[in-house]
């Protein structure tokens, strides 16, 4: 008798390696096409560098070099002055997917999942077969380590091809060199644009960029003050899901449920812990390791029915209204700027802050939809604008009351650049490639409030400007008709030409007094840097998503 088919099928059933999975689904990580792949690689490397520097409280200086190797191949070299990585960790960080420190903690950082840079290594390896070359040094007292790494795709383990100590002129820092298939274009979704926007929202960073045309662009830091060092926080009970809760219970060292709740969550003290247990109808001195799935579910229910104060918000560092405005002024030569930072708010137990800024008028087109620049934890979001919560909130805002024209469910039309920054200990992206923010009602609400505040300031300005225009129109009006008053008087009274001239002079004087005075409303923009603004503005059409 033949074996059941299932036995045969079973021979083909095996675990799918995470690296294997991502090698087939590279679009999930932002490697959909050659252009985006190059962009994503640089973005991941820069994000990592900046996170590392800030964590070590070092003023970041990052250099990026993109070299065109021909045949759609590029060599990317990203070098920072960060704290460096100890020798043992280098292979894991660069050549193992889902490895890192950031996933396990709740704090505002650019990277979240620990996928980014290793995915780039994987992509480079898949498209050119070449290993990643890493140099890192942690202190002048230690040597610099050089490694050539590949990823063992089946096992998601690093494959070390070469490892040695090298001479390096840097006291500390990390350098990564990758060779990958890509394509380089100008335009709104270009590397140039990404780096520029990064400079706008990270005024403490110096970026030295050498593009494939071998042109070097330097974005010098505008301030020596690092963003406030962010605190790592424990999760807030409101954000926890059942599976996570059960895992936490399993690995907790607490002896009782009561102390588990107190030590593993933020904003839970003895009284709150008791109240949660009471509302969940479970015993506070139950052993965490013995909590069943049913009890876990009760606990979730109990948390929902307990009033718990919002999570602490010192764990997030917004850019701040002043620096945001300054950044905008550098990028856009407009006539009016305004920005504001919302107070912290919470979604699913995660604190977040929304900031928004507007640059109005100047050389911006009045007939096109406004330009929307989105940022999450100081990282520019260049793709998937349509899918983003920020876009949704912008569309739902009633811009007409602030002097812009807007048709139903679309962005307003007007000479406006709008910047929205969301920072949080955990930014909810719609996918791993971190391009769009998920539509949480709390986030949309906060974005709208920030936009409304910007809108109110804008509306005041636009109205003022209209008054000024009206006054200047009136001036022209007066000048048009004065000669006819004097002419009629001459005809009626037969006055001399000189007297007629006199009437005109006097009338202009009399009427000038009756006009409102023109208030100087236009701001002078000393921050504007024309060369800076040009960066990344190619003729390349925006890619449609």
């Amino acid at each position, binding site marked *: 008798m033949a074996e059941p088919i299932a036995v045969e099928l079973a021979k083909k059933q095996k675990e799918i390696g995470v690296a294997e999975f991502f090698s087939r689904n590279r679009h999930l990580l932002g490697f959909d096409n050659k252009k985006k792949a190059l962009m994503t690689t640089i973005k991941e490397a820069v994000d990592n560098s900046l996170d590392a520097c800030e964590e070590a409280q070092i003023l970041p200086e990052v250099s990026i070099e993109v070299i065109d190797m021909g045949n759609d191949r590029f060599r990317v070299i990203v070098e920072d002055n960060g704290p460096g990585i100890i020798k043992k960790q280098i292979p894991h960080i660069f050549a193992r997917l889902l490895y890192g420190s950031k996933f396990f903690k709740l704090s505002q950082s650019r990277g979240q999942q620990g996928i980014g840079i290793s995915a780039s290594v994987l992509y480079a390896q898949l498209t050119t077969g070449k290993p990643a070359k890493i140099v890192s040094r942690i202190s002048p007292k230690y040597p610099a380590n050089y490694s050539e790494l590949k990823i063992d795709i089946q096992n998601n383990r690093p494959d070390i091809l070469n490892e040695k100590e090298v001479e390096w002129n840097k006291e500390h820092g990390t350098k990564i060199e990758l060779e990958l298939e890509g394509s380089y274009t100008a335009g709104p979704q270009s590397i140039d644009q990404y780096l520029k926007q990064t400079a706008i929202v990270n005024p403490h960073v110096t970026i030295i960029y050498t593009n494939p045309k071998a042109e070097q662009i330097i974005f010098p830091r505008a301030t020596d003050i690092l963003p406030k060092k962010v605190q790592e926080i424990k999760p807030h009970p409101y954000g926890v899901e059942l599976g996570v809760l059960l895992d936490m219970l399993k690995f907790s060292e607490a002896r009782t449920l009561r102390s588990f709740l107190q030590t593993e969550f933020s904003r839970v003290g003895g009284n709150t812990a008791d109240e949660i247990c009471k509302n969940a109808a479970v015993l506070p001195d139950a052993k965490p390791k013995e909590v069943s799935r049913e009890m876990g579910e009760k606990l979730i229910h109990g948390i929902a029915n307990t009033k718990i104060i919002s999570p602490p918000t010192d764990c997030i560092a917004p850019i701040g209204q002043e620096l945001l405005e300054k950044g905008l002024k550098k990028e856009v030569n407009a006539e009016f700027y305004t920005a504001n930072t919302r107070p912290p708010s919470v979604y699913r137990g995660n604190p977040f802050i929304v900031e928004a800024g507007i640059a109005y008028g100047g050389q911006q087109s009045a007939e096109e939809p406004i330009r929307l620049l989105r940022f999450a934890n100081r990282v520019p979001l260049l793709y998937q604008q349509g899918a983003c919560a920020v876009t949704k909130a912008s569309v739902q805002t009633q811009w007409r009351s602030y002097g812009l024209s807007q048709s139903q469910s679309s962005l307003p039309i007007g000479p406006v650049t709008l910047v929205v920054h969301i920072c949080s200990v955990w930014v909810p992206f719609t996918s791993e490639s971190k391009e769009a923010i998920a539509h949480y009602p709390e986030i949309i609400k906060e974005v709208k409030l920030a936009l409304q505040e910007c809108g109110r300031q804008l509306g005041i300005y636009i109205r003022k400007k209209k008054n000024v225009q009206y006054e200047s129109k009136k001036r022209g009006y007066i000048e048009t*008709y004065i000669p006819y008053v004097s002419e009629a008087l001459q005809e*009626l009274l037969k006055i001399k030409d000189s007297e007629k001239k006199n009437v005109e002079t006097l009338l202009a004087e009399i009427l000038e007094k009756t006009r409102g005075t023109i208030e100087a409303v236009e701001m002078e923009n000393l921050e504007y840097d024309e060369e800076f603004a040009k960066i990344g503005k190619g003729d390349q059409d925006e890619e449609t998503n």
Partner: protein
Amino acid sequence: MKKPTDVVTSMKNIAESVYTSILKKKQPELTMPLRALNNVKYDPKEGYFELLGKEKERTLTAGTIKTFAQTLKMMSLSKNLVETDDIASKREAYYISKNWGPARFNEQPESDAVMDDIEAMMEVNREQIGFIPEEKGGEIAGKLVVVDKDQDTGKELKIDCTKFGSGAYSIPISVEHLKFETDAKFILAIETAGMFQRLVKHNYWKKANCILISMGGVPTRACRRFIRRLADSKKIPVYVFTDGDPYGFGSIYRTLKAGSGNAAHINQFFCVPQAQFIGITPQDIVEYKLPTHPLKDVDVKKIKDLIKNDPFIKHYKPWQKALEEMAKMKVRAEQQALAKHGLNFVITDYLPKKLADQKSWLP
């Protein structure tokens, strides 16, 4: 009424005051009486709507400079017309303004309004400042000889209004120079051309020894002035015959007798205080069982407005009663409704009976 030289002087005075203000670096002002029903009073002794004191000021500001310039330019045009003894129709004046560059009028109503302002400012009739309306003055048939002048020779010209056959004599736009010869017993002013034609066709004027005048709706200023001068100089009564509706009472008859709000500054000359209303009254509708039409919303509104706001109606109880009665009946009747009783019923029965019975009239 003001002589042409007075008109020119008064225009110069206004210009002079504007000029003086400017020299003193003050905002010049033009002042004119407010021409509206709420700025008139009715005194039966005077017999016309007299201006109350309300005035409209036009101060020269950035916002009013265009109208201000237009007003002065229009005055200059007017001065020119008066000095050269010429006239311009309202429409012509509008076209002349097309030479004024950006100060030109875009539509004729704008130039008409400025013209009205000037005549009010100077308290003259527009004909006196050289502007004439497009509208016809009214038509005359009957026992009247109008003494006019030949336009070229200036020789006296006698026009016999009995000799127009089935046609009629047209009242000219300016009637100030006309003289009259008549032995007619009364003047009958008629609202509609249709009724006028019927009476002319059957030589009613011969039978009744009267002068027939067709007003064709609300009487023009020339028509009012013509009837006034004729009635005054020959001391003959004036009877008015209109449709039995609020428009006939409140607009046609009232304007003929007491003047209008818009012409408040000159009503004194353009009204016929001796006019009497003989029909069609609401009472006639009942008595003669006339075919009627229901009152429209505008009619109801007009009745209410007349009772509440018209100084003339407010002065006469019988008019208020008549209007209230009509409002109750909710119907109106046209002059031609009399034809129900035969085409010549109006000649053989209605008019003789009405004229003989003063009690059936309205004041």
